[in-house]
């Protein structure tokens, strides 16, 4: 195993906690590195994050470069980009993966532009063909898939969509090398400052992290319909989503919108309530593992993608489902 042509993963962390997508990236990087007979290196940037570094070994990292500095407490394009740029220039990795979150995409695009290298966004599969990376990514709202290649420039960079790649079983016995990296950018060089951090409303599960999503659409009839959707979601420990029609009607804020001009989600279970299934909505949720649709109209396009299509009045069916789910959960 050598350091040459290695596969690198920039770990995504929030408040010093490594995000799930980081482990998905490490698991995938391990597979690629084994095929290429090279090693996996992880980069961890932040403040008070050093203790988290060893977590990366269990998922396949051979080395973890840690840059632990107060100046990295908040994600900022300039500081994070500088640290990663220096590491890439010193170590010349072949492949570099980052998370397709708002921060990962911000950083990856800036760095790729600086390094004059190729970057494939929001990838959902990585493969090797003749030792060359082929990154698969959805385009046109998931209606078309693109296989992207990187003819010459290195590293080949990808951002990876959370929950798209499978996480391997962690092996706690694995260890590796932790390498401390200095942060050499001056505060004066950093062009942005984070003035305020606004956390999500407490108790609210974010759409992009949710394992289960319950969404409501025009079929709810009015804004108060979301009371039932919220109750349904709460019973399941789910996040609340919405169609564009419901958002445009002013029934629920935009951050709940699922679809091409909202969020793209792929939870284990997606329950669409009173959503007809316009192309732009399907674009945001049709890669969910299991889709349940509840709709009065048997001809609604949503039934074309649903594993279970419940034809009926959502105001009558959902209360029954809530009671049944409560019974099931009570027995566990």
């Amino acid at each position: 195993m050598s350091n040459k042509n290695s596969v690198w993963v920039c770990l995504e962390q929030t408040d010093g906690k490594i995000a799930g997508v980081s482990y998905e990236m490490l698991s995938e990087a391990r597979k690629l590195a084994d095929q290429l007979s090279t090693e996996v290196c992880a980069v961890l940037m932040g403040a008070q994050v050093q203790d988290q570094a060893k977590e990366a070994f269990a998922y396949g990292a051979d080395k973890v470069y840690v840059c632990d500095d107060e100046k990295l407490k908040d994600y900022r394009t300039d500081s994070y980009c500088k640290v990663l740029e220096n590491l890439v220039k010193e170590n010349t990795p072949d492949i570099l993966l980052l998370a397709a979150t708002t921060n990962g995409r911000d950083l990856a695009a800036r760095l790729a532009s600086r390094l004059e290298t190729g970057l494939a966004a929001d990838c959902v599969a990585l493969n090797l063909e003749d030792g060359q990376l082929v990154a698969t990514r959805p385009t046109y709202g998931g209606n078309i898939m693109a296989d992207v290649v990187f003819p010459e420039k290195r590293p080949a960079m990808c951002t990876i969509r959370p929950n798209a790649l499978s996480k391997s079983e962690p092996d706690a016995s694995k260890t590796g090398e932790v390498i401390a990296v200095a942060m050499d950018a001056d505060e004066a060089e950093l062009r942005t400052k984070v003035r305020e951090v606004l956390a999500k409303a407490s108790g609210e599960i974010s759409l992009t992290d949710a394992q289960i999503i319950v969404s409501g659409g025009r079929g709810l009839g009015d804004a108060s319909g979301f009371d039932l959707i919220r109750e349904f979601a709460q019973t399941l420990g789910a996040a609340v989503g919405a169609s564009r029609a419901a958002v445009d009607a002013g029934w629920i804020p935009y951050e709940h919108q699922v679809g091409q001009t909202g969020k793209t989600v792929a939870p284990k279970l997606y329950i669409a309530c009173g959503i007809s299934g316009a192309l732009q909505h399907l674009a945001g949720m049709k890669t969910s593992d299991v889709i349940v649709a509840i709709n009065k109209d048997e001809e609604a396009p949503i039934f074309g993608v649903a594993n279970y299509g419940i034809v009926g009045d959502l105001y009558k069916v959902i209360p029954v489902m809530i009671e049944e789910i409560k019974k099931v959960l009570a027995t566990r």
Partner: protein
Amino acid sequence: MNVLVCIKQVPDNAVVPKLDAATNRVVKDGVETMVSPFDLNAVEAGLKLVEEHGGEVSVLSVGDDSCKTTLRIGLSMGAAKAYLVNDPALEDSDTWATSYTLAKAIKSIGEFDVILCGKQAIDDDAGQVGAGIAEQLGISQITYVNEIKEVTADTLTAKRVSPAGEEVVEAKLPVLLTCEKSLNEPRYPTLKRTRMANRAEIPVMDCAAIGADAAKVGKNSPSAIKKLYTPAPRQSGELIKGEAEEIGKIAVQKLVEQKII
């Protein structure tokens, strides 16, 4: 305050895109186009900035001659100037090459305090060009902006979507922002402005005119699309019909049996 907004013409998203197997491209002939929705939020943000702080908005696009239609929509909303970069050498440019081209074009057009882009185009869905332009121009960036809070002589403060929620970021000017849909409600063009926009001369520049190296763009981009294909259609499952009491129970039973809940 001078503002430049990058806008992109995309195929109408109400229509399922089709692939031309022979050329490995998405069929564009005969397909209606639209301005990528988030770019309209960027135009609106630009217009609001100049209404408050003075100056003017310019719109810029890369593409063939048909993209003048998109630029005219920017003009009809209130932009003062429009520019198109059109060069056959740019065909098949990736996001790196497009950022490079747009940055070169911006430098050749003039100096701007704020540059705005949509958070991503809804055809390519990459969301990489904004940050790419900021890097090529050597200016600060705030991506995924959903509120512009304050502008001073040398800073701009905006709220952005972060993985943990939201954050308020202050950036030194000049700055590039990428815009979320929730940033604003794009205005409709007025009839008068539309008439003016339809008569406006839109300068067209090629790679040579903006000083872009044709050897770095188009087919020479750092990444390339090897293949485009339609994902396997999702199979529809079973329909459950009957009385609410009954079908609600059946649905939950099935989810439990399949270990989904």
